[in-house]
């Protein structure tokens, strides 16, 4: 555990540097994505600088998961420009279903620099906790096994699961599985963490342990994009909040501001509906 104690919610105003002097980790311009005839993202533009914790809110169907999945090309966007941890790609990146612009090495760089944590954990069920965590560092990043194991043990300790390293996922609770999934993402030494509704599949009493880990990562200064329904996390942990509505950014700004003075009526209603 690190001992950094920055309080996230004050950060935008408390930052000594203006926003644009921190390195930009993620820049999205005019991102569009359709599934068949349904246009899910209708031109999204967004930025995240180093150390930003961006909460992405929105009703189901607003496109927030699709947006996140476009960032590491689990979905291929139709149009727009993406700049992910230094890799700049202008869509369309594919023609007739074949990737023409994003080559394998670029894809690996993007996917290991922007690590994903899923709603349903998606741990590899035939591997132990430790094997799950060292898999990508060894198989994808080709780092020496001994180093990977040592680092894996450190990140597992970081999420409070060092003693479970030889356990299989089926024997863990949902909260523990999600913490392993976070450790798995951290083990790739990513620059950005992408969370896709990380607590939505959890029993209510297990949400806390995952949020605690996420809060500690935020306090550490990690860059995070978090699609979530946890208003508490958006309000108190995230530095910025983005509210999507029908594939467009409806409201966006420092979390303290947008929650105190929502400009959009829809966002106001959304907060009221969720926070009763």
């Amino acid at each position, binding site marked *: 555990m690190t001992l950094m104690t920055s309080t996230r919610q004050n950060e935008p105003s408390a930052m000594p540097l203006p926003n644009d002097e921190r390195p930009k980790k993620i820049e999205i311009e005019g991102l569009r994505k359709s599934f068949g005839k349904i246009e899910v993202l209708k031109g999204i533009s967004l930025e995240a600088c180093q150390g930003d914790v961006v909460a992405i809110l929105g009703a189901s169907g607003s496109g927030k998961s699709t947006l996140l999945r476009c960032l*590491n090309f*689990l979905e291929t966007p139709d149009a727009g420009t993406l700049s992910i941890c230094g890799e700049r790609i202008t869509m369309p990146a594919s023609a007739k279903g074949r990737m023409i612009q994003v080559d*394998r090495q670029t*894809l*690996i760089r993007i*996917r*290991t620099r922007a*690590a*994903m944590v*899923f709603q*349903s*954990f*998606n*741990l*590899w*069920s*035939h*591997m*132990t906790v430790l094997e799950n965590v060292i*898999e*990508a560092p060894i*198989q*994808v*990043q080709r780092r020496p096994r001994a180093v990977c194991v040592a680092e894996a043990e450190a990140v597992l300790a970081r999420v409070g699961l060092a003693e479970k390293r030889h356990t*299989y*996922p*089926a*024997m863990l609770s949902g909260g523990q599985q999600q913490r392993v*999934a976070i450790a*798995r*993402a951290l083990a*790739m030494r990513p620059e950005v963490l992408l969370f896709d509704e990380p607590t939505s599949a959890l029993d209510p009493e297990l949400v806390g342990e995952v949020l605690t880990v996420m809060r500690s990562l935020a306090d550490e200064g990690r860059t995070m994009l978090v699609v979530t329904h946890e208003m508490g996390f958006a309000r108190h942990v995230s530095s910025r909040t983005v509210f999507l509505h029908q594939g467009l950014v409806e409201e966006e700004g420092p979390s303290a501001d947008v929650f105190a003075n929502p400009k959009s009526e829809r966002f106001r209603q959304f907060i009221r509906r969720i926070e009763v």
Partner: protein
Amino acid sequence: MDSYDLLFGGGRWWIPLSEGALTTVTIAASGFVLGAIFGSALALMRLGGNAVARRLADIYTTTLRGIPDLLVIYLLYFGGSGALGLIGGFFGATGFIGIPTFATGALALGVVSAAYQAEVFRGAFKAIARGELEAGRACGMSGPAMFRRIVAPQALRFALPGLGNVWQLILKETALISVVGLVELMRAAQVGAGSTRQPFLFYLSAFVLYLVITSISGRLFARAEAICARPYRRA
């Protein structure tokens, strides 16, 4: 000579019978392995994106599961011999040229069991949680790496019960290959029955030997299943 003497004493019939049993096991194993290779190729064709390949594999599995295995054996044997005869004709050979019966038998078992194994593998692949593949993709694994690290180990586990079933089927089908002259367990028992005029004794011996083979292999499959199920046991 009494039964015991006939089998183990001066008759020494236990030797051809156990040789036959060994042939049965080897040909079944060869057919099984061939079937696993063809079968996984067929399964990949059926799961893949190419519509023509998918249709071809579909036709193959439907056809081969729908015709009698004996017919496949005859077709392969006489088709193979015919082709060999044609080639032989060029070099002046005349008459019927037999092709190796063991190879024919193994091939027939492979061709037939591939159709069943393809379905087993396809089902096993579909049983893998989609999210686990997505997690592999999300951390930059390539297609082949995902197959090797995630798909194959899990598909094998899901396929094991079905594969055990196919194995038992193949073991029984080996008896059919005696029609082209391969001396496996069934044929060895027939020979013994004919030359000693004690058919019941020999068929009973064959029964016992088949039972020994199936129970041992059944136990091995159960062991393998237990080992593969270990990660999935809840505490």
